[in-house]
């Protein structure tokens, strides 16, 4: 019998429907993989009982012919989504022990579609990081290793590093992620999986622990494009409880999948050829161009002149919003309270926040507070929001000559843990290709394109027009079919 944990979401769905196996068998197989993979530290909380209960409900539904879209499919949940009755920490000490009394809209949609939950996935603390090294609950270790024979622990990417590690290690077939500046796409690229950040507003932010509200967007991560489409259509949808939720019907993205790109024009933004980019990344990009041409697309060169300024704008806007959002952690309503002897209210706030936040979170709160403070607001924050307008305008102009954009996802393959931790700026530069689409709210996806000389995965990014997730997924599928990416990490954990 095939190993059930090697199956994709679509294959689990089909095999379960045909009666080749039970949902309980699937849940038990994944639960066993989760339990045996502590060395990866991908989960903060494991919820095998949740997965089993959903599986039993699915088996019952099958016998009664009442199947739901995700009946029989267990998934992983990034620990940024509030889950009723299950600890939700955002990988912080601040929220350690926080047990939501409500369900986030995205997790509710998935559970209502029949999915079970294998556990809450580790991440960078409050989703701030690109390597999963800022979690209070320890680093996530990528299942991938360099082929040089060394055993250096590699970063699974961030912030959705638990999600990416768990999927590539077959601990779950799919997982939720969130993306503020690249937190779905970069970890997907580092671990040889796929992930899509939809248009801003497609997935409700209600019940997702907030980082930077004008940028935060949930999306799925999985091993192939079809699974991303299946997951996304069961996550998205209008929610009156999120003021920025888009009141639009959810397309049937899976049914719309087609890798025939005839008539599509794919733009290659020349500004993404950055100095010092490894030749392997350049070669991967050329390969991606060839794949899309082969699928029938016309390739055009385009210019996004303000690309260079996306990262500095992001590192003003995101910390500014974070400093405001994270003001809620005051030791009064939920989360940690640190009350030194004889302390007053103000001292309690300051002590609580000093004890509850990690170094990177504090750094961003400090930057955000500074750029929003009297006398500096216009020079930093207003200027950054104006530059953001110009970045969005660059994309609008590009859409006059193309339908999609193709770029590398990240400027390198996965780096070793600790390698970039000393210099926050070097870490920030990892997001150079993913941040512009975030600032413009555009749908963007990473799919595996190949391996580097050390045997590590490299990702290609497709960026689409607002609401054109279908176009993005289809181009992703065209690359997937041609790249034939089948590499997987050898099991060492």
């Amino acid at each position, binding site marked *: 019998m095939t190993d059930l944990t090697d199956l994709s979401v679509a294959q689990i769905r089909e095999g379960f429907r045909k009666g080749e196996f039970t949902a309980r068998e699937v849940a038990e197989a994944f639960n066993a993989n989760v339990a045996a993979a502590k060395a990866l530290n991908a989960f903060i909380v494991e919820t095998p009982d949740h997965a089993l209960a959903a599986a039993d409900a699915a088996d019952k539904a099958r016998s009664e012919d009442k199947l739901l879209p995700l009946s029989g499919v267990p998934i992983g949940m990034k620990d940024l989504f509030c889950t009723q009755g299950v600890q939700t920490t955002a990988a912080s000490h601040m929220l350690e022990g*926080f*047990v*939501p*009394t409500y369900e986030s809209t995205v997790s509710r949609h998935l559970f209502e579609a029949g999915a079970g939950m294998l556990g809450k996935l580790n991440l960078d603390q409050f989703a701030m990081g690109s390597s999963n090294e800022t979690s209070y609950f320890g680093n996530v270790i990528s299942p991938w290793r360099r082929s040089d024979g060394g055993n250096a622990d590699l970063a699974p990417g961030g912030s959705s590093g638990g999600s990416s590690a768990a999927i590539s290690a077959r601990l779950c077939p799919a997982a939720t992620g969130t993306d503020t500046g690249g937190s779905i796409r970069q970890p997907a690229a580092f671990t040889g999986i796929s992930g899509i950040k939809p*248009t801003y*507003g497609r997935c409700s932010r209600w019940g997702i622990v907030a980082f930077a509200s*004008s940028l935060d967007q949930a999306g799925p991560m999985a091993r192939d494009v079809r699974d991303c489409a299946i997951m996304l259509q069961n996550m998205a949808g209008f929610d*009156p409880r999120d*003021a*920025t939720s*888009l009141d639009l019907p959810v397309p049937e993205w899976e049914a719309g999948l087609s890798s025939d790109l005839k008539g599509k024009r794919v733009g290659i933004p020349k500004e993404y050829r950055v100095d010092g980019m490894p030749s392997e990344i350049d070669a991967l990009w050329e390969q991606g161009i060839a794949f899309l041409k082969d699928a029938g697309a016309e390739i055009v060169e385009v210019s996004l002149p303000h690309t260079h*300024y996306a990262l*500095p*704008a992001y*590192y*003003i806007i995101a910390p500014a919003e974070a400093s405001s959002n994270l*003001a809620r952690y005051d030791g*009064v*309503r*939920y*989360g*940690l*309270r640190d009350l030194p002897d004889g*302390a*007053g*209210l*103000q*001292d*309690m*706030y*300051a*002590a609580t*926040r*000093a004890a509850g*936040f990690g170094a990177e979170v504090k*750094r961003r*709160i*400090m*930057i955000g*507070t*500074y750029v929003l403070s009297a006398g*500096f607001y216009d*020079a*930093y924050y207003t*200027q*950054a*929001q*104006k*530059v*953001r*307008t*110009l970045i*969005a305008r660059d994309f609008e102009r590009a859409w006059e000559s193309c339908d999609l954009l193709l770029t590398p996802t990240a400027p390198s393959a996965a780096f070793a843990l600790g390698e970039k931790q000393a*210099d*926050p*700026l070097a870490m920030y530069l990892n997001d150079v290709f993913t941040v512009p689409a975030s*600032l*413009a*709210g555009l749908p963007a996806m990473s799919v595996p394109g190949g391996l580097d000389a050390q045997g590590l995965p490299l990702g290609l990014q497709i960026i689409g027009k*607002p609401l054109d997730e279908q176009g993005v997924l289809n181009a992703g599928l065209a690359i997937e079919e041609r790249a034939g990416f089948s590499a997987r990490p050898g099991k060492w954990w």
Partner: protein
Amino acid sequence: MSVDHATVKKIASLARLAISDAEADALVPELNNILGFVEQLGEVDVTGVEPMTAVIPNKLRLREDVVTDGNVRDKVLANAPQAEHGFFAVPKVIE
């Protein structure tokens, strides 16, 4: 623009983050490094450009003017570090 020790302490106070002098000293070069990086935005000509307010055009919805607190007081208080008599409790703020 750059920050010094006193400015870092001032920002920390605004952000309600207790930091020691040693932590403030460590943050001075870190923050200056990041501020130096974002300062390049000053080069961009933004004459006549409006700051971004919404990436995807979307009109703000109005809802019925009714109480929607959900009548879930106990759930709201369930995760409070200290809840008393149906309220959040904090250290004494008035003498």
